[in-house]
């Protein structure tokens, strides 16, 4: 144990592994998206996808069992809240149906859709989540649809309830989706119905609580209002999300007299901790076809 040769060899081994890790870190940050390590990552993800799919399906009963315990505890309290919400939503659906009919007629008459950049036609592709990022620092999931199914990078992804994220890496049969709770995520958003614009960013460690930043003080945001994608481009990250995809509901508004902006907390509609199925909003036809489709209601 105290043989100096053994000690030297042991320390040398550690130094080699640490050195190799640092070399990989440096090279990874230095290379482009088509570099060696990125290509290796794509290849590995594609190779492991069948195993992850199989393991995910085999372990699903166990996941559901554990999930059942937690869900039962939460269900009682949630039931009362949902009953009230259903009542309110019924009223809003009736109003929305009327408004939709009116809007459709008006759109056909004055062709407003072209000027307003109405949501472009998309083709939803359903996909199953086959892998989740294991740490809180990277909020990504892998899905079982790839370029062969028409999925491309930057396409928006929705889960039950609302926006989940966007596609950031695509292989032939799988794709990586960066969730809106990832540290790198920034989604330009709009509070409905008052139209206040802001940027939805995550707060690491709190996937059930997003932050809507950069809203002017003058635009008062109230609790309970809905936040949707605005379709604008934020200062740091180019937003590829179409306008009008629901993100979440305003759960709290912090008003600070010192800060220039309000700090709005948003509870996402989609349960991003436990998503099994998502939809990728892939492009539907050429842009010209999409415009034509919008103009003919």
């Amino acid at each position, binding site marked *: *144990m105290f043989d100096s040769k053994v000690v030297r*060899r*042991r320390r040398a*081994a*550690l130094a080699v*592994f*640490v050195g*190799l*890790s*640092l*070399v*990989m*870190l440096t*090279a*990874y*940050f230095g290379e482009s998206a088509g570099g060696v*390590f990125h290509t*290796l*990552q794509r290849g*590995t*993800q594609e190779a*492991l996808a069948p*195993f*992850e*799919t199989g*393991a*995910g399906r*085999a*372990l699903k009963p*166990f*996941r559901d069992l*554990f*999930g059942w315990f*937690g869900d039962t505890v939460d269900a009682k309290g949630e039931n009362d809240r949902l009953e009230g919400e259903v009542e309110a939503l019924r009223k809003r659906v009736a109003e929305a149906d009327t408004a939709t009919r009116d809007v459709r007629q008006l759109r056909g008459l004055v062709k407003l859709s072209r000027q307003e950049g109405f949501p472009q036609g998309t083709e939803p592709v359903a996909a199953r989540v*086959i*892998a*989740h*990022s*294991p*740490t*809180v*620092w*990277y909020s*990504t999931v*892998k899905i079982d649809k790839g370029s062969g199914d028409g999925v491309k990078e930057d396409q928006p992804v929705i889960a039950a309830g609302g926006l989940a994220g966007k596609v950031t*890496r695509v292989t032939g049969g799988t794709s*990586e989706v960066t969730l809106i709770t990832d*540290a*790198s995520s920034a989604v330009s958003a709009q509070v409905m119905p008052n139209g206040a614009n802001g940027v939805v*960013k*995550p*707060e*690491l*460690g*709190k996937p059930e*609580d997003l*932050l809507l930043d950069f809203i002017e003080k003058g635009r008062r945001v109230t609790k309970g209002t809905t936040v949707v994608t605005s379709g604008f481009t934020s200062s740091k990250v180019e937003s590829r999300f179409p306008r009008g995809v629901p993100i979440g509901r305003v759960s709290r508004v912090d008003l600070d007299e010192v800060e220039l902006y309000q700090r709005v907390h948003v509870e996402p509609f989609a349960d991003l*901790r*436990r998503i*099994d199925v998502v939809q990728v909003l892939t492009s539907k036809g050429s842009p010209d076809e999409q415009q034509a489709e919008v103009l003919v209601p």
Partner: protein
Amino acid sequence: MSATPGAFARVALIALVAVILQLSGFGPDRLFGGRPDLVPLVVAAVAIYAGSVAGAATGFGTGMLLDLAVGGTMGASSLVLSAVGYGVGRYREVRDPAHGLMPIPVGALATLAWVTAFAAVSFMLDVGASVSPLVFRDMLLTIALNAVIALPVFALCRRVLRPALLVDPLDLRRRRQPPREAGPLGLRGLEI
């Protein structure tokens, strides 16, 4: 552990299964708001049974596989897990633990080292967003859950590694029976 192809294959199998299970099976599980993390447990298990060099090598390989499979920053997990594997291996070499419940504190401490060091590395490298204090709750829950599952995970790893091990640190029979012709201190030639 003898550096034979069979030993490499056993360690590689453990690492591969752990990463795949972590990504597809254990990841979505959230017990009491947290989730167990198999990766530091298997690295710690290999290190405790096979020593510091094997632990560091396993940490490096498992970390690289994890970074490749997750699409995270290459080298970050390798760096942290190499150090975790080496540290646990050195603990075994210096203290030679043999208690049956040893996997629980070792697994918990290895997980603590992994989550804190990985958080620090991630935070320094490329996390620009604000960080909620709830991150610490997640870390604590992961450590607690890993402590709970440490015993079966270590036992499974031991079973897989055992044919390739030169010395099994948990082999109590080895300790209870001193070598023949040894003195009362268990040292040959010192029959005091």
